[in-house]
C-alpha cells in the first residue's frame, strides 16, 4: 500500500517538522499531514525569539539544548536559518519584578547560563536608545537570540523529504482509527487513508480538536495574540526587549532584515481561534514600544497580524504518551513552539524510537499535576 508509514505527524508547523526530522533520521518513513501549508498556523505568525531565561528547570534544560541545536544547524549543517544570538533583556520597573528576575537568575546560573542582572546604565550599553525612566535594571542573557521561523521549518521539511518522508498539504485529518486502544491509521478530508502504528499530534492550537478524534481531552486552549512589524531600519539594538508590566510588550529587531517585530499579551486574554487584527492593538502597541525606546517614534508600522498561542493550564508544553497506544502528543507550546521545537522534537523522537529520555520529558507529561505555573511566561 502506498500510504503505509512508520510515523504519521499531524501538523507541519515547526514542532511537527522538527519531530519528523529527528524521526526520519532514525530511518523511519515519516508522513506529515498539514491542513493548510507548512507554517500557515502559529509558526508563521510568531516573532522568532529564542530564549533560555525561564524559571522552570526542565524548560531551562530544554532551551539550552535548543540553542545548541540551532547553533549546530547553522554552523555545521550550514542551514540558512538566520540564527543570531543577540540576547534577551527583561526589564524591571518595580522591586517586585527585580526580585522575580533575581530569583530566576539564581536558578538559571545553576545551569551555567551567562545571565546577569544589569543596572540601567549597563542596559543602555546594549540598547543605547533605551529610556531609563523608572527603570531598575534588567535580566540579560547574551546567548539567547532569534531565528527565522519559516526558514527553520522549511529546512526540516527539506531534510525529511531527503530521508524519503512525504508531506501532504491541504489535507485535514477527520478520523483517527484505533483497534484495541492502539492507533492503526487516519483518514483525511480528501478521503485518503494513512496507516501507521504511531501518530503524533503536533496540531498546535488545534491539538484539542485532534484529541477529540480519539476521545482524549487535551488541556490546550487557543488564545489570540497580535503582532506588528515596522519598516526596515539601521541596527538599533541586538536583543529581544521584554517588558512584563501589565501594559508592557516585547519586541526584537530582525538582525538580517532590520524590521522590528513585536507583540504584547492582552489583558484580559482573548480565548478562541479568531485571527482577526484589532484596532485596539494597532494604536496601543506603538505607544508601548515608544515608551521603552522613544526613538522608535520616527519609524513606520508596515503591518499587523494575529496568531494563536496554544495555552495549557500551567504554561508548559504537553509531550509524550497518552492512554492510547501509539498516539503521542507534542503540543501546548504556550507561544514557545519555535524555540522549543529543536530540542523537544529531538527528545520525543528519541523517546519513541529508543524509549530513552534525553530531556526530563516526564515533567511535560499529559499525566502531570497542572497546578504549578511557569513564572516567566
Amino acid at each position, binding site marked *: 500500500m502506498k500510504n503505509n508509514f512508520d510515523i504519521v505527524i499531524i501538523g507541519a508547523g515547526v514542532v511537527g517538522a522538527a519531530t519528523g526530522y529527528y524521526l526520519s533520521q532514525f530511518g523511519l518513513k515519516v508522513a506529515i499531514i498539514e491542513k493548510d501549508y507548512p507554517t500557515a498556523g502559529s509558526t508563521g505568525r510568531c516573532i522568532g525569539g529564542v530564549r533560555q531565561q525561564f524559571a522552570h528547570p526542565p524548560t531551562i534544560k530544554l532551551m539550552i539544548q535548543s540553542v545548541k541545536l540551532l547553533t549546530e544547524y547553522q554552523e555545521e549543517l550550514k542551514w540558512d536559518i538566520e540564527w543570531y544570538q543577540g540576547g534577551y533583556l527583561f526589564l524591571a520597573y518595580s522591586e517586585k519584578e527585580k526580585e522575580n528576575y533575581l530569583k530566576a537568575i539564581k536558578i538559571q546560573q545553576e545551569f551555567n547560563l551567562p545571565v546577569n542582572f544589569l543596572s540601567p546604565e549597563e542596559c543602555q550599553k546594549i540598547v543605547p536608545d533605551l529610556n531609563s525612566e523608572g527603570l531598575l535594571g534588567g535580566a540579560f542573557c547574551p546567548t539567547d537570540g532569534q531565528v527565522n521561523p519559516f526558514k527553520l521549518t522549511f529546512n526540516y521539511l527539506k531534510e525529511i523529504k531527503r530521508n524519503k518522508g512525504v508531506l501532504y498539504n491541504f489535507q485535514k485529518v477527520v478520523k483517527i482509527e484505533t483497534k484495541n486502544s492502539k492507533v492503526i491509521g487516519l483518514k483525511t478530508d480528501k478521503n485518503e487513508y494513512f496507516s501507521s502504528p504511531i501518530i503524533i499530534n503536533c496540531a498546535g492550537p488545534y491539538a484539542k480538536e485532534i484529541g477529540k478524534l480519539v476521545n482524549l481531552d487535551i488541556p490546550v486552549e487557543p488564545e489570540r495574540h497580535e503582532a506588528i512589524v515596522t519598516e526596515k531600519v539601521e541596527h538599533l539594538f541586538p536583543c529581544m526587549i521584554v517588558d512584563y508590566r501589565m501594559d508592557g510588550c516585547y519586541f526584537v529587531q530582525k538582525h538580517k532584515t532590520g524590521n522590528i517585530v513585536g507583540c504584547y499579551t492582552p489583558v484580559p486574554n482573548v480565548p478562541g481561534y479568531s485571527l482577526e*487584527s484589532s484596532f485596539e492593538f494597532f*494604536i496601543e502597541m506603538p505607544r508601548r514600544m515608544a515608551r521603552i525606546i522613544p526613538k522608535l517614534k*520616527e519609524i513606520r*508600522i508596515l503591518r*499587523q497580524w494575529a496568531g494563536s498561542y496554544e495555552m495549557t493550564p500551567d504554561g508548559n508544553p504537553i509531550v509524550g504518551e497518552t492512554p492510547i497506544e501509539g498516539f503521542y502528543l507534542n503540543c501546548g507550546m504556550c507561544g514557545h513552539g519555535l524555540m522549543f521545537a529543536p530540542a523537544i522534537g529531538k527528545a520525543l523522537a528519541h523517546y519513541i524510537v529508543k524509549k530513552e529520555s534525553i530531556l526530563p520529558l516526564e515533567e511535560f507529561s499529559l499525566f502531570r499535576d497542572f497546578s504549578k505555573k511557569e513564572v516567566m511566561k
Partner: protein
Amino acid sequence: MKRDNFIVCRCEDITWQEIEELVKRGFTLEEIKKLTRCGMGYCQGRTCFNILIRLLKISDPKKIPKKRPPLKPISIEKIINYFEK
C-alpha cells in the same frame, strides 16, 4: 523585456527567476511570500503581488495572501499623537 532578471519585488529585490524557481519546486504563493519576503516589504505587496498574480495566472482569491492593516505605512509618532487622549 527579458523575464529572467526582471525585478518582481522592488522592496526586497527579488527577480522573476527566483520566484519561478520556487514555483517549479511546488511552493504556493503564500509559501513564496514567507520564504522570499516578497510582499512583506514597504509596498506590502501592492506592486509585486499584482505582477505575480498575473504571471502565475492565479484566479482563486484564497490562494492570494491576505492584505493586512494598515492601508499604508504610518509612523509610530503619528499613531500616538492622533490617538492620545
